[in-house]
């Protein structure tokens, strides 16, 4: 019975990916992916932030805690940040977080930081498809999920 439940649950595994996109590049890149009618799964949900440096590591942890199976931060290419240096901070901060996630047992593959420009609609779709593929392989995120939180 228990086993059956588990398999049916796994079959129905619909990963949830939360993507934080900076307004100037990656959010626009996601818009371009839409305008070009590129396909990527509906599991990806985007939150707009002014700059990738606005993303607090707490947001990432919160997403994992609330049941996200993967988190993406996307910003302008290094050197192209609308606020000139924002994404350099992003890069440093999330190298640290990556190590910490690893330490607490969350697979590194669940967390992606990438640079997607406003012109890279196809890269946006490719990155999202790539993330989903990895997350599908890993299965649902159970490590940090708050049990009281039902999705």
């Amino acid at each position, binding site marked *: 019975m228990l086993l059956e439940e588990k398999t049916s649950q796994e079959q129905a595994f619909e990963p949830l990916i939360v993507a934080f996109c900076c307004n100037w590049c990656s959010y626009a890149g996601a*818009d371009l992916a*839409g305008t070009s009618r590129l*396909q990527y*799964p509906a599991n990806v949900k985007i*939150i707009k932030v002014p700059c990738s440096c606005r993303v607090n590591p707490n947001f990432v942890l919160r997403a994992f805690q609330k049941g996200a199976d993967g988190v993406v931060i996307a910003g302008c290419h290094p050197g*192209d940040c609308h606020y000139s*240096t924002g994404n350099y901070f992003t890069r440093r901060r999330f190298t640290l977080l990556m190590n910490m996630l690893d330490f607490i047992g969350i697979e590194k593959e669940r967390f992606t930081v990438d640079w997607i*420009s406003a012109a890279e609609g196809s890269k946006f779709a490719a990155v999202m498809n790539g993330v989903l593929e990895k997350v599908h392989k890993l299965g649902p995120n159970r490590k940090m999920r708050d049990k009281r939180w039902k999705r």
Partner: protein
Amino acid sequence: MQRIGVFVCWCGSNIAGTVDVAQVAQSAAAMPGVVYAKDYQYMCSEVGQNMIKQAIAEHGLTRVVVASCSPRMHESTFRKTAAAAGLNPYLVEVANIREHCAWIHKDKAEGTKKAIALTRAAVAKATLNAPLVAGESGVEKRALVIGGGIAGLQTALDIADAGYAVDIVEKSPSIGGKMAQIDKTFPTLDCSACILTPKMVDAATHENITLYTYSEVESVSGFVGNFEVAIRQKARSVDAKKCSGCGLCAEKCPSRKAKSEFDEGLRTRGAIYIPFPQAIPNVPVIDRDECTYFKTGKCGLCSKICPASAVSFEQADEVITQRYGAIVVATGFDMIELDKFGEYQYGQHPDVITSLEFERLTNAAGPTGGKFVRPSDHKKPKKVVFVQCVGSRDTSGRGKPYCSKICCMYTAKHAMLIRDKYPDVEASVFYIDVRTPGKNFDEFQRRAVEEYGVQYIKGMVGKIFPEQDKLMVHGVDALSGETVVIDADLVVLASATKAKDDAEALGRMLSISTDTHDFFTEAHPKLRPVESHTAGIFLAGACQGPKDIPETVSQAGAAAAKAIGLLSKKKLVTNPCVTTVNEALCSGCLACEKICPYGAIAAKTIELTNNGVKETRVVAAVNEALCQGCGGCTVACRAGAIDLKGFTNRQIMAEVDAICF
């Protein structure tokens, strides 16, 4: 508790095709705080907007959520709608269910589920939205135009005619740009110099225009309406005020090794030189890398013979700092280097030349005085072969994947001009496709074939072999499948256009983005073609992508109109989404100050009473006029004392929670 209204847009069938909009509205109605939910065909239309206004009044809405296209598209529209109904515009949130949902998913059930989730996130965020009031800032009534080619000149003239001061910064010693090098222009075949030089003179003599030639932009700071720009005026080594432009120095300069940039290296010039006879300003410049005096300390002939004693070896670079309300980037383009295209023998054989060299070769003011001869032996060629798409539409990595756009037309022009002047010369063109959209363009190209008998061969050239004094051009006629060999005397390569090498660096300085090929990116490919993503910075001409002259001029006019629109404003509304410090939480560590790219955060001493004892404490203070709202500091703050209005920690957390619902 908030009273939230949710408005779901169908966008015709754009959203409604893959999202069950009625169900989205129905689910939204059950979300916390939502008291009204409605779907409609076109929310952005007048009817749709009135619907929102009416609902605000009738249902006493305190927040509005519109689930529609990207906020980059219509957020401002809906903010205005709310404002018109008496609601603070920043109480509106947009859920992007078109670009981020309807357009990327085919499955309607999936799309609907996602649209509901995105709407839920927007509702959650809107609940926490606070009314924000935008500040005001003044506008410096002066524009900067970077680049003095046709794009820059046209922009500057238009802005100056509207009554605003304009400065043109041009890197080379003279204004005029690429157009000054061209002999005739398509499709009218009028003389390029005859239409350009009057504009150059107009710009130089206009009371509102200041020229900074031989100058570069060194740094840019500030923001729309208030840019501060440092311009480095390189030392000409000639005092422009004294110089009469007689040209004696350039004539007598004993150094003759430098290649003339203007003549594409087909002629040499002195170390002291005037780039071309119609140069503006007509003041020579010393190329310090070539000048014997600068290299060895000897010579100094120019200084001795100058009747006006204008030569000044001691002159140093000068940095001028100026404030501007608007900046127009018009830095133009270049042609790619052909060193990766060994098969064409360019650089190996003198009779293989680029199209721009050909322009100089046929120009009456060019190195041959307009006599049509080939570079190697100065004989008149009998067969000329033109090769198009050299490096254009090239996905092999050697060239550029895009179409350079102007080559089909100028090649037709070149071939036509030869056949017109010398009917005995044969002209053949190798092409992949002939692309001639544009007014009178196709007619022009057809005339080249039909009236002037230019031979067009569809196919690429495989290799060129020099044989005695001939160039054997081996190609394939793709239509017949046969190999073609032409014993040419001159080969002209239509090399691809590219962005300026320093475009990326300039883009970084201005914080405007460039695309993968280093052309500057416009704010919207259709609707905002001359604006950059940075407010107050506009684009004109080929720096944004390959363009011909008519297109460049119209874009320059459009950029000027945008700049004038900006300069004519009395006040600008500033972005209210800036950071604030909660002084009660701030420990005064000032970690935020260090990472702020705008210097918008500084220490401030506050006085407070602690248990009746007066004390002072250092806290961070934000200068709202300088803060651009990136939010980087909010993450650096250990105490969480600094937060970004419009994107507060709580708002983003609420979005995360709603999405993971």
